[in-house]
């Protein structure tokens, strides 16, 4: 087995050489995961905030369910999305199977519960602080949601990063619904799985390190943005 250093050198020499295939894979990974997280946030943040402020019968059950869904195994999600999008499935007519769109759907299903559950928690504690003030201004609980979302923005960034981490790192779902098709649906994680199965452990490890560097880059960029604003608002 090759050593870590050798793996690192091999992977990065490919990056520095701007290996077209590798660049394509990295770009697709980012595109799929960012889109999935974006959609998951559009659905999950308002839903999480609404769950935080709304009081209705069965709310406790819903919260338990959402929290449990955070632990969905990616393979199960992949399988479920496959069965939906398959030509033999109810949504086969969309012809999305083995496309990046199918991978986005699968990752979205994985990430949305995380966004809902964590944003619910953050907004709920924030809501206790703001509730009386916002109601005194004539806003109902649900009308307060946009304000609360913006006030919680620093905490919600961490939620979004958690969702992105889950999306970019997962392999079980995208390999089933994407098919790991070269130049079409091959992303970082499915490439790593493929190279591992070819016995190219060094290359697989190197790709893993690139994935890690990407994740660090995204996190650092968000933290810098957040840090500048957050210190100002104490």
């Amino acid at each position, binding site marked *: 087995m090759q050593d870590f250093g050798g793996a690192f050198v091999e992977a990065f020499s490919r990056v520095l050489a701007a290996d077209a295939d590798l660049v394509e894979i990295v770009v697709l990974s980012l595109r799929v995961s960012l889109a999935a997280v974006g959609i998951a946030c559009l659905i999950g943040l308002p839903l999480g905030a609404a769950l935080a402020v709304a009081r209705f019968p069965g709310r406790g059950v819903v919260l338990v369910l959402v929290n449990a869904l955070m632990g969905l195994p990616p393979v199960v999600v992949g399988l479920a999305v496959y069965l939906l999008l398959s030509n033999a499935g109810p949504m086969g007519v969309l012809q999305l199977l083995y496309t990046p769109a199918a991978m986005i759907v699968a990752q979205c299903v994985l990430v949305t519960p995380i966004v809902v559950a964590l944003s619910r928690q953050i907004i709920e504690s924030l809501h206790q602080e703001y509730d*009386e*003030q916002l*109601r*005194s*201004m*004539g806003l109902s609980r649900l009308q307060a949601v946009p304000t609360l979302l913006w*006030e919680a*923005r*620093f905490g919600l960034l961490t939620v979004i990063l958690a969702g992105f981490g889950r999306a970019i790192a997962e392999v079980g779902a995208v390999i089933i619904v994407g098919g790991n098709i070269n130049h079409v649906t091959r992303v970082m994680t499915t490439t790593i799985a493929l190279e591992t199965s070819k016995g190219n452990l060094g290359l697989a490890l190197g790709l893993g390190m690139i994935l890690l560097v990407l994740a660090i880059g995204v996190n650092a960029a968000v933290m810098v943005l957040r840090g500048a604003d957050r210190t100002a*608002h104490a």
Partner: protein
Amino acid sequence: MAIAGFLRDAEASSSRAAIALPVRMRDVVYEIAGKRLIDGLSLSLRARSRCVVMGPNGSGKSLTLRILQGLLQPTSGTITWSDGAPGHAERRARRSAIVMQRPVLLRRSVAANLEHALAVYGERRSERRGRVEALLAMAELEHLAARPARVLSGGEQQRLSVVRALAAEPALLLLDEPTASLDPRATAMIEALIDRAHRQGVGIALVTHDIGQARRTADEVVFLSHGRVAEAAPARAFFAGPRSEAAAAYLDGRLFY
């Protein structure tokens, strides 16, 4: 509408006689977990008048303000708003606005806090900038407009909180011990701000333990004890010699139960 436009035609408003009754509470009871915290309270607040609400801790002062603001629903009793200005009734949020002892400001700039309030109150976008500037000037906070609201001093935060309430163009401004945690200079600035609002035609209901502040501010005094009105009197008469035993004990600093 005349009252709602107080910032723009303050002169016209203040020249009008204060005759309308903004609100009357009658036999209001508020219970929670079987405890009767407000016990048949009846109270009238007149428009454009300054009413100071006093009373020992637990007498129901803050609850009364919250019930007036609609933050709490009374268990029984009636609250009747009689509108001094035509068209006022349909704008429930504008009847009153409340300032808490500890202001809850948004994690945004000073100006953005006012922008937000104006947006919530439905102010047209094109009007907001001008109104923000007027409100900042009123609170003497122009130089801090771009500063994050939560890093302001306590006094500055409370001034912002007062003009944010005034952004609602309320007929009645409710203040719950707004200066309880402020130093004398910051307190004086809040009192000046309240005075400015009053001269522009806004009715004031101020809860305070500060007897000096009560003397400086009040046109009339309502004294609460055990969730009821123990005494309601013109300020001069009240401070000359309260008729109720509870108020007399309170002013003397004696315990009374």
